[in-house]
């Protein structure tokens, strides 16, 4: 099947492998990620203020592009997902906002028709973890992996609707499907410090340490994440555990991690 795909700025740059592993794994699972043409950066964070219109236009354009193709829009980066999903929710539920936005849209108006899926949701709901499990060639048996959700994937829960915001299991189920053992730790849904690392590196350092230490104390030997900024903050602030993208783990298990083109 084909889905629209919004990679986002970081996946074209510092997190190239998050993108690359996502594409390879998708192919291996029979899903084609069709990159939206001429996409623009989502802006990294969703501005909750109702009078912010311009900052949300890039997301709406991507959403509309997918709508015209009648495809769901898939994202991998937690930040892109959060921004696009929240924007779509506003388009769907706030007619006043939608009409303001639609003044900037050519031709047909857009009113939140597109289904926004995170890559993890694609795996869970469209492909199915059982199907993923069947495609595993390198079982990750024996690995104890802590899934770090951060804040962007789950919250606000009423909008994101991905999983229980306090007790999520989507990544744990993926880890299980790949043959490894998930390690649940309480701070998996706490913030790493995010963009405040620019303003207060000390705060980000403390928050990242809270996460990494808690994962280690819970007995994990690796942390996975979907967010480039989370990964950066955790590594920069001295995580003792390796921090990798979940797509890397997936690609490894599916046997498509090493580039076979060469």
């Amino acid at each position, binding site marked *: 099947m084909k889905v629209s795909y919004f990679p986002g*700025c970081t996946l074209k740059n510092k997190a190239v492998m998050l993108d690359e592993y996502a594409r390879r794994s998708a192919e291996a699972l029979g899903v084609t990620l069709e990159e939206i043409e001429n996409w623009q950066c989502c802006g*990294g964070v969703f*501005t*909750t203020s109702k009078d912010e219109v311009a900052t949300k236009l890039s997301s709406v354009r991507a959403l509309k592009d997918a709508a015209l193709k009648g495809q769901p829009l898939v994202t991998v980066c937690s930040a892109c997902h959060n921004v696009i999903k929240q924007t779509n929710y506003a388009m769907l539920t706030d007619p006043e906002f939608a009409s303001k936005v639609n003044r900037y849209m050519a031709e047909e108006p857009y009113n939140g028709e597109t289904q926004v899926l995170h890559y993890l949701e694609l795996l869970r709901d469209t492909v199915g973890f059982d199907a993923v499990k069947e495609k595993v060639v390198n079982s990750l048996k024996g690995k104890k992996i802590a899934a770090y959700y951060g804040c962007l994937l789950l919250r606000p829960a009423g909008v994101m609707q991905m999983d229980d915001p*306090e007790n999520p299991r989507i990544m744990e189920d993926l880890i299980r499907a790949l043959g490894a053992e998930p390690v649940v730790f309480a701070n998996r849904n706490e913030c790493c410090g995010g963009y*405040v690392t*620019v*303003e207060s590196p000390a705060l980000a350092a403390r928050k990242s340490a809270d996460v990494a230490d808690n994962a280690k104390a819970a007995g994990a030997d690796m942390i996975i994440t979907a967010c480039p900024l989370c990964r*950066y903050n955790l590594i920069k602030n001295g995580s003792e555990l390796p921090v990798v993208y979940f797509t890397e783990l997936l690609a490894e298990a599916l046997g498509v991690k090493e580039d076979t083109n060469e």
Partner: protein
Amino acid sequence: MNNKEKLLKEEILRMSGVNPVKCMRCGKCSGTCPAYDEMEYHPHQFVSMVESGDIEPLLESKSLYRCLTCFACVDRCPRNVEPAKLVEAVRLLAVRKQGANHLKPEDVAAVLDDDTPQQLLVSAFRKYAK
């Protein structure tokens, strides 16, 4: 509340869509806030200060730039008050003033390293600058 305070309050409520009177003063937002110690005014104070029109001190405060927008306060609030949206509205009001950008391109060099993801910079600019 004097007239100016009233107008400011109305603007904040309109931008944020938050209704602070729903707050029952339980303090769970501040109990869960990961940036609490960095803030001069805490999430629950944003709610009660906006409600009482006491917005000027908030506009001046560094607290505006320490909120992580992690939505922990939003999701865990038992009354659905959404304090983070208030913080965001006040911050926008502050940075939208001419020349009030909190982050300038020249500040960036200091925080850059080889691994800095683009996401960090675009987010920070969106949050701190207009």
